[in-house]
Every structure is written in C-alpha cells, then in structure tokens.
C-alpha cells in the first residue's frame, strides 16, 4: 500500500506543565489506509500521543499533520449516552456531523448493520453487553466519517472470547472502509494480530523504540503461529525497554 501520508508526526515532544517529558522526539509517518498499532508499557505516553493526534491536546514541541477533516476517536469505555438507544447514539454523531434529519435513521441502521447490531438498534446501552457496546461505539466512530480512526485500548476491558471476535470485526470494517487506523494497546498479541505495522514506544519518555511491518495481514488469528512468533520478538524488545527503567 503506497498512499500519501495521512498522519505525519515530526520531532514531537510533550510535557505537562513543569512535569517530566512524556513524549520525546517522536517521528512517525502513517500512510492513508494503514493500520498501525502503537504498543508500549504503562507510562509510555501512548494515550497522550493519541490525544495529540486527535487534537484534544497540543504538542509542546514538534508538529503533527492530520487530515483537515480530523479524526474519529474510540475509547476504552464505550461512553455511549445512557439515555439514548443504540440507534440514537449513532444518530447523535450523524447529527453533529450535519447529516439531515431525514437521512439519519437509515444511515444509522446501516452503520449498526456494519457491526452486526441491526437487531439491537432500539436497545439502550445498559441492555447491551460490553462487546456490543463497543461495537455501537465503533459504529458511532464510523458515523463521523473521518478518514482517520483513533482507538485507545478499545477492547482492553472485554473478555478474551469477545475481544477475539471484535478483532475480526474491526479487521473486516477496516478492509471494507479503508480507514486509517491508529490502535493503541498494551497487549503485544493484540498488536501483532491486528496491525500492518507495530510501533513500539519506550517508556519515560516515550520514544519510538522499534517498528515491525507485517507483509501478510489477512487470515491472521490471535492463535496463528506467525502472530505468536512476532509477539515473542516484540515482547523481547519490550522487556529490554522496560528493564532500562530499573537502572
């Protein structure tokens, strides 16, 4: 895939107030339509980096180029509006995007169908399981119709079976919609399972400590041998980075 860069990060640095440097000299170029996993231990500033890309925060030094349309964001907690049904939650995103009232309903149902939730459209968040809520959140993020989708550990709170299914779901949605996805996780296997590229961030301060490109991305499963092999390799590097903090 050789598109132009969708996100370009140059010599990015971030510190909060007078605190320590959270991100230091991060350089990253993410191509349009690419699926990148940002991986790192706690305190590596993954979420900070994501917030910077999302425009929820400003960098201290350096520059970030993102598409003018901005990015959709999905968080660890689904953060659905509890007083709205699944469909209305998606419709809210459409409404804030400026979609005409008459077109919202059909489009929301279509988006819910994309994540296999057409039957649950009239249910409220508390009637849905954790995995279903995250799928509604995914449909809502898709409703924003932004070229970039940022995901901040969206499946961290789910059980293994559900997470496994959602990996497949996300991969399918990615192939179908051609979105650029930046997926933050602290789960090595998840990164090796999902990404076309895995970017390892070191901790305190966060720097790019390693990169792996995966040539063959279709047909991967969490239990596939190639995923396991890559996980071992990444884990080795990750542990090296963590050990540096002991000194």
């Amino acid at each position, binding site marked *: *895939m050789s598109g132009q860069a969708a996100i370009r990060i140059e010599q990015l640095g971030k510190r909060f107030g007078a605190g320590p440097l959270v991100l230091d000299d991060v350089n990253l170029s993410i191509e349009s339509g690419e699926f990148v996993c940002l991986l790192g231990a706690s305190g590596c500033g993954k979420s900070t980096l994501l917030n910077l890309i*999302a425009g*929820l925060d400003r960098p201290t030094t350096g520059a970030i180029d993102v598409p003018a349309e*901005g990015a*959709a*964001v999905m*968080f660890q*907690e689904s*953060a659905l*509006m*509890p*007083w709205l049904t699944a469909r209305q939650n998606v419709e*809210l*995103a459409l*409404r*804030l*995007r400026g979609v005409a009232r008459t077109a919202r309903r059909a489009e929301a149902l279509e988006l819910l169908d994309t994540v*296999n*939730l057409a*039957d*649950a459209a009239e249910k*409220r*968040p*508390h*009637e*849905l*399981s*954790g*995995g*279903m809520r995250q799928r509604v959140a995914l449909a*809502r993020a898709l409703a*924003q119709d932004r070229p970039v989708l940022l995901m901040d550990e969206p499946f961290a709170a789910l059980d293994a*079976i*559900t997470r496994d*299914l959602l990996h*497949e*779901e996300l991969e*399918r949605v990615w*192939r*179908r919609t051609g979105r650029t996805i930046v997926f933050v996780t602290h789960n090595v296997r998840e990164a090796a399972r999902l990404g076309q590229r895995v970017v390892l961030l070191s901790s305190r301060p966060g720097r790019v400590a390693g990169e792996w490109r995966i040539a*063959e991305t*279709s*047909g*991967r*499963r969490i*239990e*596939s041998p*190639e995923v396991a092999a890559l996980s071992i390799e990444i884990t080795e590097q990750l542990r090296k980075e963590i050990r540096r903090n002991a000194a």
Partner: protein
Amino acid sequence: MPHDDIAGRGTQDPTAGRVATKERTETPAADPASSGLDTLAGARYSTNEADDLRSLEAGLDRLQTDDARGTNAWRTFTTSVLPPIIFVVVLIAAWQVYVWIVQPRPDIVPSPISVVTAISDAWQSDRLQTAVLTSLERGVFGFLIAVVVGTPLGLLLAEVKPLRRAIGPIISGLQVLPSVAWVPAAILWFGLTDATVYFVVLMGATPSIINGLISGVEQVPPQLRRVGTVLGAGPARLATLVVLPAALPGYVAGLKQGWAFSWRSLMAAEIIATGGTIGFGLGSMLDQSRELADLAGVLATILVILAIGILIELVFFAPLERRMLRRRGLLQGGTK
C-alpha cells in the same frame, strides 16, 4: 449447546485461515499484481467470513444479554402498593379501637369517624374545595415560577465555576433556612397579598432546584463530555445534547425536592399570613379550625394536606423518575 457451537467454530477457523495464507504465498507474482489478487482474495475472504462472524457474534450477543423481564403488575401491587395501604388501615383500626376502649375526651382525641365527618362537612360547605383549589393553584404556580427562576440560575452556576464558588455555598445555606423565616419579611414587604405567599414559596423551592441541577451537572461523567467534543459538538450543542440530558436525574431529584419545599412553604405562609387579600387556602383552613378549637377539623385538614403532597408525588414525580431511571439502566426490575 451454544458453548459447543463456539468451541466448534473456534477450532475450525484457524485452519481455514492458514489454508488461505498458504494459497497466497504459493502464488509468486509481481507487487502490483499481487495487490490486485490480494483485494480479490480479500473480498472472497470477507464475504465468507462475514457470514460466519455474523452468526458467531449473534450467538455471543445472545449469551451475554438477558432478555428484559417484563414487570409483573400483580407483583408490583403486592410488594409496593399493598404494604403501605395495610399499614394505614391497621393504624386507623388501632386508633378507633383505642377510642372505643379508653373513651378519651373527644376534643383531645377525636375518633377517626369524627375526622371523616369533619372532612365531609367541609366538603358540603364547599370550604374544602375552595381551600384545596386555592392552595393547589398557588403551590403549582409558585413551583413553576421557582422552576423558571431556578433552572437558568442553576445552569449558570453549574457551568461558570467562579460564580459557583462564590454563590454555591450561599444557595446551599438557603436550602437549610426554613422558609417560614421569610414570612415576616414578606409581610412587611408585600403586605397580606398573594405576593407574600409566592415570595415564600419561591424562596423555599428555588435553592433545591438550583442545587439539584448543579449536582446533576457535576455528576455528568467526564468521558461523555469528551465524546461530545470528539463528535464535534460546540459549547452550545454540548450543553443541550450531552450535558443537560446527562444531568437530568439530578435535575428531576431537585425538582421533586423543590415541590416538597414549595408545598411546605406554602402551608407555613398560609397559616401565618391570613386575612387581607390572601384567599382561603388549606393553611388558612387549618388556622381557622385551631381558633375554633376543632381538633377533628385540624386533623382532617392535616390529612388533606398530607394526602395532596403524597398524591402529587405518586402521580407526577414518581412515574417520571422511575421511567427516566429505568431507561438509563439505573433501576433494575422496579420492584426492589
């Protein structure tokens, strides 16, 4: 049975995936061609897998969600309606039995029957209807004024932090102040007019409504605001589409308390401020019965005041609150 289903697919799928991988690695091709093949294979892969995934997900969704149990009307009746009714009936029976056995002076302990007679007398002389209508009209109208005054004030205080720091504690303090304390001042300001009554009701109810709204807004989870911002809502739409609906439970709780304070303040004002152009309300009726040393009439009026308070709560606020909480999953079943 559904577990078997998942396990079966789980062991089946990886092999399918691996076969697909092998197929593609075996076809040696130049880069552009392989990318074309890739999309073709990808398309085939996704239609096959999509159906599989769909059924798998549907199965898991069914396993992970309970079908909502319908509320049983009879159960609701026996668990939440019947107990208080039984209690009241027993109380009245005990009272009547006490009067029969001890035979106290009727001007100190009237029997339930004489209280009921007092109510029906008041009804026949039209005093009861006039009093109830006058009081209800004032209570409801005063409460609505308090809502109209309190809601924008509450919103302003909730959203403007410096203002809240300055005024918030005073509003909380006002909530503690018994609104009867305003009656003398109101009489001096407005004389014996309806304005006095409305002023006291307003001072009683507004702090509760403001405080309810502030605490409702404070309890809005920060991630909902964040999502609103991410979805592209500006300050105005964030307030109307996210913050206000999210703050509704606190607001309704404040309204409910505000009504209780309105009703209490109204009775206090009506008992103290009688005469002038102030009409005949339940409080005035209570005071009149006291002057005539008519204890049965006093008790009858107290019961009517209590009944109206409970009735408004049961008919208006309780269903509103229950419906809102159930929609948000904050109330399970409804019978607990």
